[in-house]
């Protein structure tokens, strides 16, 4: 018989076993949660929501990224933020500097590359003067980097030839806020979402562009069942699909809608006359006007008059105006559909007008909120004044006293800063083409894909000595004379300011790969090589921050209370924040909440940045868009974002899950239009404008309204912006990416 081995335990073994098992059950740490050995607070690298994240580190590895439950986003992220964990490992990183030899970019040392850059900049300065060298920055550089570049150019080189990609996204919002309130940046905060009873969303597809903000809107609508969502968009987006009232206006006409809403509010007794009298100055096209003038101005925009041009029902306009005015608290939210337009500044002013006319401002939930697209367009570029016509903290190049202030703050002799503004972004690239600009440094952005009318501007970039610092190869590095490898995300330390005036710090947690350097090091190195080392004395993120913080003292931005130490500890702080004891400002212009606002018996809010402490209601007349009504090009191409890609896809197209999901460039077209043109789903179609042409796949869907086709611009293979027209808003100089006359045909 086979011996069956028997499992025997002595009593002693059994007792030990039982004790160990019992202790394991009682004390054991469950799950894989031990994977991260430390959690560090940082911020998401992608959009302007600026979500707080916590990064789980194990040694030198990122093992987890989660939403920070204590940050303003309350632990929420979107699909892009949830994919951040793959960003440090993304393939295709630039590892060493490269110099162009013929049509190839050849590996070089940092010394060779920076030596060449500095020499070329010097010779160009000699040849063309300070206006011959340009800097084109980004709303994705850290505040320290943008500040240093701005100082180096304006105070060091005496050149205002510095602009950045926020010109393509936020310049119109800036001009809108400055026009109405005398000061840039939104008066309200994200937390107004939790108090609003009516959301007026225009020119924004929050569900895809800002999913975390939209989730908050949805939670609010769940919590307050009487709250209403109005969406204005020529496309029935995922945002519009959730709307209680959706207004599918024709592209380029929505100023008519806003003016018509003003007309309804003024003529139906919905206006808060007391608020307007106490807080507002009325300004027509030729100067101050009376209340009766204003009534007459808006009467031209009565709903019945404008509805046919808008392509929506007059009754819907009245409903929108009524909901807007009568809700306990109304919050407007808008982004590129309003800002990237020829009438962008007018649209911005008129949204602000709606809030002033109804008194929906400066209370919880009542605010005009311009949502921003890049993580540091606000803090880094708008606030530091790293644009061609402005100086830091709301000062402007044209004003002598503002230049004198900046010269004192920077410790440079009077007269160093040029009184002549530099070129705005498109003019800057045009000047690269015609030789007015000989050398340019582009940092952390991809104009070779993101500018409109790319045929023109890509050719211009080729003619210039173009230096591009980026973490990856892009459609811009391919045009460069010198390519510099840059650190990405948590490979450097910095501060970024998101859309609600909140400055947030993120630490350096990883070493950059290869020889990559952070942009601040590159700028400091350049300054030293240009002989301006004595100007750029702050050379670490910490030192630059302290210099910058000190500069803000006593200004309308005053964030001198935001020390490095505080920013490291806190989940961001909102300026004004004038002392270390100050908690930051959630709502501006509200006495008691905003340290700069003075209480008064006559008025509830103090618009201290405007003469007489009164906000301006600007009357803005609509003019037909030059691209509409073109018989030869009967369709309007509008461009925008999709949820799983960010901007030109430089980062998101390198994250495996997002890349897998990304369709090659496609054109959305309405089924009725498709049928008329004999276009079937997935057919290849040609989109042609007066500027260029492209071929992409057709997606037949009723998301865009008839006569409108839509494309995104993340695909580096098919450049959507070859077709897009390069009209700019005459005030903000921001290009119109939303309205291009095109033909569509099957190929």
């Amino acid at each position: 018989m086979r011996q069956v081995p028997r499992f025997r335990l002595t009593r002693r073994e059994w007792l030990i076993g039982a004790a160990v098992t019992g202790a394991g059950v009682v004390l054991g740490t469950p799950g894989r949660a031990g994977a991260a050995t430390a959690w560090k607070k940082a911020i998401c690298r992608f959009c302007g929501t600026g979500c707080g994240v916590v990064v789980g580190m194990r040694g030198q590895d990122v093992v987890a990224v989660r939403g920070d439950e204590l940050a303003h986003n309350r632990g929420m992220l979107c699909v892009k933020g949830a994919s951040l964990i793959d960003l440090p490992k993304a393939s295709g990183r630039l590892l060493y500097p490269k110099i162009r030899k013929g049509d190839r970019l050849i590996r070089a040392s940092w010394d060779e590359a920076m030596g060449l850059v500095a020499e070329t900049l010097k010779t160009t300065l000699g040849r063309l003067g300070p206006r011959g060298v340009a800097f084109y920055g980004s709303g994705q550089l850290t505040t320290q980097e943008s500040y240093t570049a701005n100082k180096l150019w304006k105070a060091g080189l005496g050149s205002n030839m510095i602009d950045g990609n926020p010109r393509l996204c936020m310049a119109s919002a800036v001009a809108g806020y400055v026009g109405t309130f005398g000061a840039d940046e939104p008066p309200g905060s994200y937390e107004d979402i939790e108090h609003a009873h009516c959301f007026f969303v225009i020119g924004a597809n929050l569900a895809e562009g800002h999913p975390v903000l939209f989730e908050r809107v949805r939670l609010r609508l769940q919590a307050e069942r009487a709250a209403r969502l109005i969406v204005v968009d020529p496309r029935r987006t995922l945002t519009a699909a959730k709307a209680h009232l959706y207004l599918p206006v024709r592209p380029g006409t929505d100023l008519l809608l806003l003016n018509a809403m003003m007309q309804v509010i003024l003529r139906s007794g919905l206006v808060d006359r007391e608020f307007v009298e106490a807080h507002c100055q009325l300004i027509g096209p030729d100067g101050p006007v009376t209340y009766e003038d204003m009534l007459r101005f808006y009467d031209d925009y009565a709903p019945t008059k404008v509805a046919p041009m808008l392509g929506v029902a007059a009754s819907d306009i009245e409903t929108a105006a009524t909901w807007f005015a009568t809700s306990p608290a109304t919050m407007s939210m808008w982004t590129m559909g309003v800002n990237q337009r020829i009438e962008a500044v007018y649209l911005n002013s008129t949204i602000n007008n709606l809030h002033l006319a109804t008194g929906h401002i400066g209370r919880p939930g009542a605010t005009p909120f311009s949502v921003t697209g890049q993580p540091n367009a606000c803090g880094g570029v708008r606030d530091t004044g790293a644009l061609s016509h402005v100086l830091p903290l709301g000062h402007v190049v044209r004003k002598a006293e503002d230049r004198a202030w900046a010269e004192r703050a920077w410790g440079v002799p009077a007269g160093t800063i040029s009184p002549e503004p530099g070129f705005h972004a498109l003019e800057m690239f045009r000047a690269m083409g015609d030789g007015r600009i000989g050398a340019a440094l582009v940092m952390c952005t991809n104009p070779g894909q993101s500018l409109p009318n790319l045929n023109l501007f890509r050719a211009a970039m080729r003619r210039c000595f173009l230096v591009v610092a980026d973490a990856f190869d892009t459609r811009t590095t391919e045009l460069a004379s010198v390519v510099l490898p840059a650190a990405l995300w948590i490979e450097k330390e910095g501060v970024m300011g998101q859309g609600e005036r909140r400055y947030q710090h993120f630490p350096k947690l990883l070493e950059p790969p290869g020889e990559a350097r952070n942009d601040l090091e590159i700028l400091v190195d350049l300054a030293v090589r240009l002989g301006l080392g004595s100007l750029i004395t702050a050379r670490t993120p910490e030192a630059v921050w302290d210099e910058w913080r000190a500069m803000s003292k006593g200004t309308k931005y005053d964030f001198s209370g935001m020390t490095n130490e505080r920013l490291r500890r806190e989940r961001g702080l909102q300026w004004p924040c004038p002392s270390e004891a100050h908690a930051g400002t959630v709502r501006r212009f509200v006495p008691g909440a905003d340290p700069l606002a003075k209480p008064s018996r006559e008025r509830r809010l103090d618009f201290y940045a405007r003469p007489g402490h009164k906000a301006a209601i600007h009357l803005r007349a609509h003019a037909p868009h030059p691209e509409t009504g073109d018989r030869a090009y009967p369709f309007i191409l509008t461009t925008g974002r999709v949820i799983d890609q960010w901007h030109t896809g430089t980062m998101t197209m390198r994250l495996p899950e997002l890349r897998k999901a990304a369709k090659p460039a496609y054109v959305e077209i309405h089924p009725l239009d498709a049928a008329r043109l004999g276009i079937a789903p997935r057919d290849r179609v040609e989109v042609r404008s007066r500027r260029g042409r492209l071929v992409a796949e057709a997606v037949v869907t009723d998301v865009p309204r008839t006569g409108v086709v839509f494309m995104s611009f993340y695909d580096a293979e098919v450049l959507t912006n070859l077709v897009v027209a390069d009209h700019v808003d005459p005030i903000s100089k921001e290009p119109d990416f939303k309205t291009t006359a095109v033909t569509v045909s099957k190929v």
Partner: protein
Amino acid sequence: MPPPDVLEFSTLARTFGIVTSAAVLVGLVLIAAVGRGAVLGGLLTFGGVRIVLLILLFALPITSIATANYFVFEETKRVEACNQCHVMQPIVADMRDPKSQTLAARHYKFRWIQKEACHTCHADYGLQGDMLAKTDGFRHLVKYVSGTYREPIVYRRRPYNNANCSRCHEGLAVWEAVSSHMILVERLRRNETECVACHGIPHPPVDRTKLHE
């Protein structure tokens, strides 16, 4: 008004368990006190005593233990059971706060989970999820009684097991209509991305950066 946490069968089992336990005690006392006399008096045969003892010493205690265990298992699914420890009270209070926007509060307020609100999302910790959840609960109990814990308490089983969510949500048309779900489906399945990453915190916030100090 919170939904009632009524588990009638377990209440019945508890009553039954109490009755059987009482019967055992009374029977044993009777046997001890008057048993000898009863046998000698001819009320019971010797074999009869053995049967009574069998019932009293084995059958009824087994029934009693079984019903008691069943009762504890069922009873600890109730929110009130979790709420007995004071460290859980802020979490339960948040869940019952109609103004709170945490995931737990929304599920509770809108009656997406009718009863066993804690248990439903915290049941599955593995193949024998229920059993493991109980051992976890026992661990909590020991730490609570011995005072070997720090506040605020932190959920350590991250990443959270998405299977708890997908039990109700996966396969629904509204779930599949969200493109981000399709992009992340493999990661969600492997718990590399938690559902709560995008859908808001489940309970009041926790400062994760302080966890390992």
